[in-house]
């Protein structure tokens, strides 16, 4: 036990040094934060146009008046987001599976899935919203939806399914070939190997990039405002047009942030990589 005592002294010394280093680090961080943020604030608040910007973008009275209306529109965003996200997760997976499928009989679906990804990932989302939102009703076919919110949701689904399919596919391809060999060796079929061995590992591996696409989708829901549905951004725009004050847009921005920031923290939390179980 004498040995421990000898080590202890040295250990205390080291711990004290560590604490000093940590305190100095915290002090530096605090000072630099104050300097940077304070400088930035001073720079903006002393700008010649600030009094006017404060009134047109950050008017408390306009905010109070417009917030309930913008919030009511935001529920439509949330609804579309949730439905589209579920559709994207399913359709993206199907397309990825078709694309990695084997066998000559599936050649046409492989080709189709490649085409789907190329086309819908290649077209700007806003353009796709226009094309689907105005193009499909123009066909005047019965049975097809004409509701702008639905059409907008379809456009977003097409665009994001193409991205998410590629995320899934990269996950599937990242699983070592030995896993498939082992699955086949115990007598599983190709499909069973995919379902029980490869896919569960692949999905864990791409959970973080998938969530990242969630965040992106959640804010892109605002794009369907160009088709007319009364969602948060649209309502904010209308109020802004009525009283020439941009504060409602700030209200809408805050609502989007209220969803995307927590999501982003979840993404960060998963940053450990393959440790998810």
């Amino acid at each position, binding site marked *: 036990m004498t040995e421990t005592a000898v080590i202890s002294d040295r250990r205390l010394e080291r711990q004290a040094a560590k604490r000093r280093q940590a305190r100095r680090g915290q002090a530096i961080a605090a000072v630099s934060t104050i300097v940077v943020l304070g400088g930035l604030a001073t720079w903006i608040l002393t700008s010649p146009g600030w009094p006017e910007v404060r009134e047109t973008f950050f008017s408390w009275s306009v905010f109070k008046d417009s917030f309930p209306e913008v919030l009511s529109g935001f529920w439509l965003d949330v609804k579309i987001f949730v439905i589209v996200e579920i559709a994207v997760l399913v359709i993206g997976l199907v397309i990825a599976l078709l694309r990695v499928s084997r066998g000559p009989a599936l050649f046409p679906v492989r080709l189709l899935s490649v085409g789907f990804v190329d086309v819908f990932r290649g077209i700007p989302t806003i353009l796709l919203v226009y094309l689907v939102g105005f193009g499909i009703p123009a066909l005047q076919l019965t049975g097809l939806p004409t509701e702008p919110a639905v059409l907008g949701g379809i456009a977003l689904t097409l665009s994001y399914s193409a991205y998410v399919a590629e995320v899934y596919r990269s996950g599937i391809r990242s699983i070592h070939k*030995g*896993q498939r*060999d082992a699955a*086949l*060796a115990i*007598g*599983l079929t190709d499909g*069973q190997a995919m379902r*029980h061995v490869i896919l569960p590992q692949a999905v864990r591996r791409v959970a973080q990039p998938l969530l990242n696409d969630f965040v992106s989708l959640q804010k892109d829901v605002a794009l369907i405002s160009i088709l007319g549905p009364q969602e948060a951004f649209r309502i904010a725009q209308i109020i802004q047009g009525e009283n020439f004050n941009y504060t409602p847009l700030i209200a809408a921005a805050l609502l989007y942030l209220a969803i995307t920031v927590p999501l982003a923290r979840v993404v960060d939390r998963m940053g450990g990589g393959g440790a998810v179980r």
Partner: protein
Amino acid sequence: MSPPVLEIRGVTKAFGERQVLRGIDLTVSEHEAVALIGASGSGKSTLLRCIDLLEEIDDGDVFLDGETITDPAVDPVAVRRRLGLVFQAYNLFPHLTALQNVVLGEMRAHGIGRGEAEERGRALLARFGLEGREHDRPDELSGGQQQRVAIARAFSGRPRALLLDEVTSALDPELVGDVLAAVRDLKVAGMTMVIATHEMSFAREVADEVAFLHDGRIVEQGPPRQVLEAPERPETKRFLARLLEAGRA
């Protein structure tokens, strides 16, 4: 007389320009263990993968219980359900526990109910010294433990023959013993086996027959004492001499 469990006739296999197997003939009878020895790249792994239909052969035939399995018309899945393959790098499923690794094939490939499969799986793991590790994931097990789970997994489907591909090569020396004990146990139980190995002392002990692979051909074959102690071919002598230098014989 019933046909041999495995019969390999004139099997060739090339990967692009590289001819890996140049005409392999080998017969493995029931309860027999054949050790495949030879330098890295001599074709041992490829031969085992061809038998388990993970690679398609170019020419020749492989018969399992007298029935050709390398005919393109044969369903490879049905064949693999009658064979077991253990990989050099274990290839356990990292997202599943030890027990789940063992029962997956029983349940999905052999249609055995969960209760029965788990009961058998537990017994198998216990048999290979893994009692209490059923719910550990592969990354919580040592290499030797992982390889024993892999052996239990390959054995769980009641295969007609087990193919073991360098099952101790990836292990630290002190972990080799437990894995070899598991293989010995299977041999005593009468399992028909083809064992690709670098462990000459193990081949001598467990194998009924040793086949020396060189450059895609079996150049010498016979009982272990003959091939390992009194080799006739110069290639075999050179190979064994090199192993002796490396302290592996």
